[in-house]
Every structure is written in structure tokens, then in C-alpha cells.
């Protein structure tokens, strides 16, 4: 809890140093309803204290329940401590909420054991709050905040069918975790999901032959749809086994050396549009489209020097909200 004696600037400066409790308190505040004002001052504060703050790589990890995602993450953490001694990572793990009570049991921490008082890995659970798409309404903002402090931000979601799409929209790279011969292949082909992740993990490859046959099966499935994949080349497939401690070093190596970033402006636009659709439905979308077509909105994205200007989510949200309010008053 943020107690009244602490100022935001104190919290932010401690959080930027990697202190866990201040980070945790800020996240709770982000996870609170009607948080626009808080987010505005938070990101303003970060900008003023550390204008060149990090912009961590975001890694989405999704897959069906039982694919062993958390164990895999646990093992990644263990190796991370050895292999990346000067880097820091955060994990946001999302578990489903109960339909009845709204409560949830968040058990993903179970698999991640950290040395005592270590600040290089930060783990945060999040209930899905019954949102479709596997992400919680605040996840995106939490990730944006964590990117400022950590070199790597992992998001783990339980994905069934279409849910994988949501996580890939907020990640620089997203992995789909499958089990060997899980029957997933056909399912995913049907749902068109194979086009979304940038990489695949066949986990639980405890047995060589089973692992290999699954590998080739997936490879041939992907070859089918190569033409419609983003860069029309085959995405990497990793074979991992937590119990045999195999393939995870390679996976970590791949992540640590991944240099591509997705267009953050596109990400902001997508998330904003999604929020508007959730919050204001078709009515909101109509206004948004009007707004988007206006030249002043285009202008913020092109800086004077001709390069791409980074959009600021809170500014755009505010702009939109005031427009909505005007529209509502106008309608009345």
C-alpha cells in the first residue's frame, strides 16, 4: 500500500533503482480503476527523473493449460541469473478469475524460486478479471511501466484459441508453448493461430523421439502457411524439457540476443482502439475513426525532423475522452 507520507517522486526514484516494494505499490495503483490521472503523473515523473529510461524487450509466453509454461519460466529465471548477470527481468503472470466470486487463485509463482532478497527478477501475478483475450485491462499499462525498469518483461498467459492474439499485440516477440503431440497442431491450424506467434516452443520434450516427431510435424504444418506469415520465413521452433534441463539455454540465448522491436506507435494505437471498443463500443469507435482521420492526430506521429514521433498513450486517451465528453454534451 502507498502510505500518505510517500510521494510519487520518492516511489518512482526507488522503483527506478529496482526496489521491489515501491514497484509493487505503483503496479497496484495502475491496477486501480480510473487511473488515467495517476498514469499521467507516473509517466511524467519517470520521464523527468530518467529521460533515457530503458525500454525493455517484451516477451509473450502463451499456450494451453498444462503445457508447462510456468515451469519453463522458472527454469528460464534460474538460467537468467547465471547467464545475464547485469540484466534484470520482470514477469507478469496472468491467471483466470472465477466467474462466480470474481476471485482468483494465482499459482504461477510456484515454479519460480529466487535467491533471497534478489532484485534482478520481479514476479507479479495478475487475475484476468474475466476479460476475453487473456489479458487484464491493466496489463498493458503495467507492462509499459515495467519496461522502464527491466531489460526484459515476460507476460505469461493461459491461451486457448484466440487468446494468443492479445498477448502477441503487446509483445515484441511472442512464443506459443505446446506439448509434444498434444493435438494442438490441428486445433491451431483451424483457428488460424499459427500465424500469430513469432516463435514456437515444444515443451516437455523429455523423450527424444517423441520430441523430434512433434518437431517435424509442426515444421511441416508451418510450411503450409509460410506464405501468409509476417516475413514469409519459417519461425524458429524450440524443443525444451524442464525435467531434463534441455533446450532452455538455447531459448534464453535467443531471447537475450533478440534485437527486433515492434512498432510501439502501432501498439499504442491498437491498445487504445481496443480500450475504446471495450469502454464505448461502436459509438466510441465512430468517434475514434473521426479523430484518426483528422490531420492533427497524424501530426503527432511525424516529428518535425521527419522521423516517427512516439505516441503518448495517456495524451491520446485524454484527447479522446474530452472528445467523447464534447460529443455527449453535444448529443444532449
Amino acid at each position, binding site marked *: 500500500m502507498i502510505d*500518505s507520507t510517500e510521494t510519487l517522486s520518492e516511489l518512482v526514484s526507488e522503483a527506478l533503482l529496482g526496489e521491489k516494494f515501491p514497484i*509493487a505499490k505503483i503496479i497496484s495503483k495502475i491496477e486501480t480503476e480510473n487511473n488515467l490521472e495517476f498514469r499521467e503523473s507516473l509517466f511524467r515523473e519517470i520521464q523527468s527523473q530518467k529521460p533515457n529510461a530503458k525500454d525493455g524487450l517484451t516477451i509473450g509466453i502463451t499456450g494451453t493449460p498444462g503445457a508447462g509454461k510456468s515451469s519453463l519460466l522458472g527454469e528460464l529465471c534460474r538460467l537468467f541469473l547465471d547467464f545475464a548477470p547485469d540484466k534484470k527481468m520482470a514477469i507478469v503472470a496472468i491467471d483466470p478469475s472465477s466467474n462466480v466470486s470474481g476471485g482468483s487463485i*494465482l499459482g504461477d509463482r510456484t515454479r519460480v524460486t529466487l535467491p533471497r532478497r534478489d532484485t534482478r527478477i*520481479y*514476479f507479479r501475478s495478475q487475475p484476468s478479471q474475466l476479460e476475453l483475450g487473456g489479458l487484464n485491462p491493466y496489463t498493458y499499462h503495467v507492462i509499459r511501466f515495467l519496461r522502464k525498469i527491466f531489460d526484459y518483461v515476460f507476460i505469461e498467459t493461459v491461451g486457448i484459441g484466440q487468446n494468443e492474439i492479445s498477448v502477441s499485440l503487446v509483445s515484441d516477440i511472442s512464443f506459443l508453448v505446446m506439448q509434444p503431440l498434444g493435438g494442438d497442431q490441428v486445433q491451431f491450424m483451424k483457428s488460424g493461430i499459427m500465424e500469430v506467434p513469432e516463435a514456437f516452443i515444444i515443451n516437455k520434450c523429455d523423450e527424444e523421439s517423441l520430441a523430434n516427431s512433434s518437431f517435424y510435424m509442426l515444421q511441416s504444418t508451418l510450411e503450409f502457411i509460410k506464405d501468409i506469415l509476417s516475413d514469409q520465413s519459417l519461425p524458429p521452433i524450440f524443443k525444451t524439457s524442464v525435467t531434463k534441463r534441455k533446450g532452455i539455454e538455447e531459448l534464453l540465448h535467443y531471447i537475450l540476443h533478440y534485437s527486433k522491436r515492434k512498432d510501439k506507435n502501432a501498439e499504442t494505437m491498437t491498445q487504445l482502439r481496443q480500450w475504446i471498443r471495450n469502454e464505448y463500443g461502436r459509438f466510441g469507435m465512430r468517434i475514434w475513426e473521426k479523430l484518426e482521420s483528422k490531420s492533427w492526430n497524424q501530426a503527432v506521429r511525424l516529428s518535425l525532423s521527419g522521423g516517427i514521433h512516439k505516441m503518448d498513450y495517456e495524451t491520446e486517451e485524454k484527447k479522446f475522452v474530452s472528445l467523447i465528453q464534447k460529443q455527449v454534451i453535444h448529443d444532449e
Partner: protein
Amino acid sequence: MSAEKKDYLLVDENGQGKPDKPWIFRTYAGHTNAKASNELYRKNLSKGQTGLSIAFDLPTQCGYSSDHEVSRPEIGKVGVPINSLEDFRILFDQIPIEEMNTSMTINGTSMWLLSLYVALAEERGVPLEKLNGTTQNDLIKEYLARGTYIYPPKDSMKIIVDMYEYCLHNIPKWNPSNICSYHLQEAGATPVQELSFALATAIAVLDAIKERNCFTADEFEQCVGRISFFVNAGIRFVEEMCKMRAFSEMWEEITTERYNVKTAKYRVFRYGVQVNSLGLTEEQPENNAWRILIEALGVTLSRKARCRALQLPAWNEALSLPRPWDQQWSLRLQQVLAYETDLLEYPDIFEGSKVIEGKVKALKEEAKLEIQKILDMGGALVAIENGYMKSQLVKSQTERLSKINSNELVIVGKNKWTDGIKSPLMTDSDGGIFKVDPKSAEQTLSVLAEAKGRRNAELAKKSLEDLKQAAKEGKNLMPYSIACAKALVTTGEWADALREVYGEYNPPTGVDGQKLFLSDDKVATVRGKVEAFTKAHGHRPKIVVGKPGLDGHSNGAEMIAVSAKHSGFDVIYSGIRLSPEEIVQSAVEENANVIGLSILSGSHKEIAKQLFDELAHYKAKIPVVIGGIIPESDFEELKKMGIREIFTPKDYDLMSIMNKIIDIISVEPALV
């Protein structure tokens, strides 16, 4: 003797009355340190106890030496600490092991403890063929109920098979494992679940032995004959007796049909019993004496399914460890039953009873379906790894508790006839309970330090290297373990060597998808408060449910986790064997509103202190509540440390607990 008497009395070949020999009388005992336990055993044997049942402390069970930091609060608490052969020398001082029937309640480290026993016998010049007894060694129930596992299921099973192979050739009278459904009932198993999970486990063990293919057909039959069971007898004694008869019949069928065992004596269902402790109440504990008697009847009345060995809990076990006098009282009950009554003079007195036959048949049918389900899944190991068995048990347990809550299940003195005169048994100067002297650990530690200082360090190191190498190569580990024992290797070193090769297991928690059947008005009240909290704070209340220390009885924690979710909390629950540091780290990272601890091993004071130290490190003022077997005499000290509320088995109403917790955090200052 006239001829017609033979029909209803047990007689010898001359027609003379010849009652059965009584079962083996044991008391499950061990505490403080090897020396104190040795004295206790010798006293118990002199009182007419006929076998030993050794309780080990949690560090020994989990494979840590007493000088490991996680051991400190637990040394000598729930059993005797054993660090090296030196402790076994002290433990069995003046006890002739060649004449004993020794049962060791040990699982993850059972190969190690058996190795120590073998090393001791060889040192004393006792031929191994004379050793008689059992290492419990049922890992499946550890994953499900009790929590003292170390390695993953497949590796644990490999160790068990190693022991069968070694014992059959070297210690033929030893039971290398016993399939233990006792703890399943403690964890809430129904009779059908007890039957099916135990038999499925036995099948898993025998299938693994068969797969190794290390025995001739004759030897394999002998192996089947060495499988023994350790079961629980509950209060519904007619049903429990039928359960025992069903066990016998089903084991006969399985050994004949699945394993083709031709020799009749190897198909006999051999079992020992400890009667149920779960049903013992903290309220009016003197009533437990009657419960224990009735439960003992279920496994002794019926000759066809009479236990081989029996150990009874003490009347005050729901309060704390029993005192020597309490154990003596339990032993006397067995002696009265066996020697004063006429119980042992008759053949099976239920033969031909339609009620019993019908009930047995019904139990068998249901259990068979369940076993088939598990086998279809791939067997007991798979049903552990995918969480199936665990979730079934948590479900049964929550159903049982909700029945107590709604008074559908009557428990005298707990939810009915609760007013009464306080028991004079509790008014002794020790308050009727036993406490381990906190200084007694020093003796254990000094024996350990002394043994380490005295041993040949090179030899100890080499024997550990050999053990690791053998594990990597998949060899039978018994000879290497015995070599370690002789080289004065410690429990922690032995377990660590294998941890390096096998890794440590982290099982599913069993909390997923559970529903509670709680009365609506109470739930509505709590949910109302949760909604109010959510409105005031802008987010749901968040609780970290922590299970610190080595005590693996996670059901309480899991039920709290499930009820909290049911009330609308966001719950962080990460399973067992956490350090206070890890729990605080979770609470800090998650910015939890409250920490709930569950501790049943008696280490609450030590653990609470570590927890508050760690909270201070983070300058985190998160309220802490605690639940478990906590004597009232400790309340004041815990509250002084900062514990906000204490729940004991008396507080079985889950929604009242949640109500108190939401009240505590609702008055905390809101987020700014």
C-alpha cells in the same frame, strides 16, 4: 472338547481352544533427539509394546541435516532427528534389533534410513536375514497428502525398486515399502478413494518392479508377498471394516489376475493400521478416547481382515504431541482389547452377514471403476503428475468440511453438544500437552558436528561421488548408500547428492477448479465486505497464503486459498516448503493486503519471528494471520510479535475465518 464347538471357536489340530496371536502393538514415537527417543523406546518396550514405530523429524524426512538453515525450527519437533550412523547407534542403544519388528515412517529418504539400519546391523554383527520391519516409502501419498517428497515421481519410484531388489536378496524379511493410504484418509479420502488410490499405487510399484525385470518368476512372487499396506481406520466403523474386507478381496484378485501369483501366502493382504487422527477434536479432547476405541474395533473385530500391527493415537493429539503417559494409555487400550476380551478366540464373526457382504461388494465395484480410470490415465504416477488424485482429495475434504459446517455431519463436542465441563485431564501443571525442550537440538547438533569432525573426510567425499555416479548410470543405489552410511555421510549430504542428479519435485497444488459448498448467507456477508473493499480500494483484496517450513500438510492452506477465492479475493498460493523470506518476497512483489500462514509442525514461533524480520527488511507493514495447531499458551507471544489473528482447528468454519480476515484488512489505510 466336543465336535460342535469347533464351528464357532478357534481350535488347534487336537480340538483344543487356540486363540489367534494378537497383532503387533506399536506406538508411533520419537522426539527431541536420539538419546531421548532411545529412552522412550526402552520404556515403551518394557510396558508390553511389541514393535517399534519410529517417527522422524521433518528435516530427516525431507533430506536435510540438522545444521541446514531450514531445519533449525524443526529439529526434534515431530520425531527424532537422524543425521548419521552415529545417531542410529544412540537410538538403538541396548535395543536388540535382531529381535525387533521396526517400522520406520520415512519416505523420501527411506533408502538412506534403511542403509543406516543395515550399516548398524553389520557393525553389530547381526545377520541381515534377521532384520524384520518396514520402511514406509510410499512416495505417492507424499505427493498427495503429506508433502515429504524430494525427487520427481519417476526417480522416487526407481529408488523404491532398488530397495525391493536389494531387500529380496539381502534382507528377505524386510518390507521395502508399504503402500500407505493412511494419509489419504487424513487428507479427506473417502473409503472408495482410499481403496482405489492405494491399490493403484501398489500396481504402480509392482509394474515398475516388473519392468526392471530383475527377478525370476519365483522371486517376483516373493516381491508381491513383501508388499504391505498401512491404512487408516475411521469412525464409521462398519464401513471401515467393510473397506478392510474389500481391500483383502481386491488384493487377492489383483495379485492373481494381473500378476499371476500362484502361491496363496503371497497374495495375502498384509496391513498395519494407525487409526484416524483427522477426526480427533481439539474441543472436549477426552471424547477422542472413545473415538480411538471404536476406530480400533473396525480393524480388529473381523478376523478375515484383521490388521497385523496397530498403533493408536493419543487422546490429546489434536492439541500437541502426546506425553509418555498419553501413549501408555493408548497402549493399554490395545492390551485390554487383545488380552481381556474374547476377540481372538473366534473365527470370522461376520461371515455370511448380508449387510457386510453387500457393503463390501458396493465398495469393490466403485473402487474398481476408479482404479480403471487411473490405469486408463496411465497409472498412479500420471494421476499424480497431472494433479488428478490431488484435486479429487481436496474435493472430498472440502465436502467433508462443509458438511461439518452445515451440521450435516455430527461431531460431538464440536458442532453438537458443545457445552460441557472442562476435562480434569487438562489441568495438570503441563496443561495436558507435551513440549519439546528448545535446547535439546544442541545435543543433536553436537553429535553431528562431532561425527563430521571424526570421520574420514576423503572416504565420505568419495562415497558421495560414487553414489552420484551410480545414480547417473541408473545403477541400484542401495550398496552405495550403505557405503555412505558407513562413511558417516549425513542425511543432508546423501539427499543433496541425489538432488543434484534427479532435481527436486514441485507438484500441482490441487487448488484448481475446486468449489466449496458453503452456506449462502455467510458467503454473501463476506462477499459483501469484499465488494465494499474493492470499491474503496479500487482493486480486489489480495492474500498470500503461505506454507512455511518443512511441514507438508497443505490441505488447510489449500482450503483457505480456495475459500478466499470463493469469497472474491485474489489469492497467491505457491505450495509447500517455502521459507519465510520467500513468502514475504511474494507478498511484497504482489503488494498483498494480508499474509495468511499455515503451520502444523509446532514451529510457529520461530517462523513468525523470521517472517517479521523479513517484513522489516522491506519496510512492509503487511498484516499477518496464522492458522494451525497452536496451543493457547503461545497466543500471547505471537500477538506480541504482531500476528493479528490466530486460527486453530477449533475454527473449522472457513467463512468465519474469511470474515475475520476481511475485517482486519478493511480497517487498514486505503491506497493513496
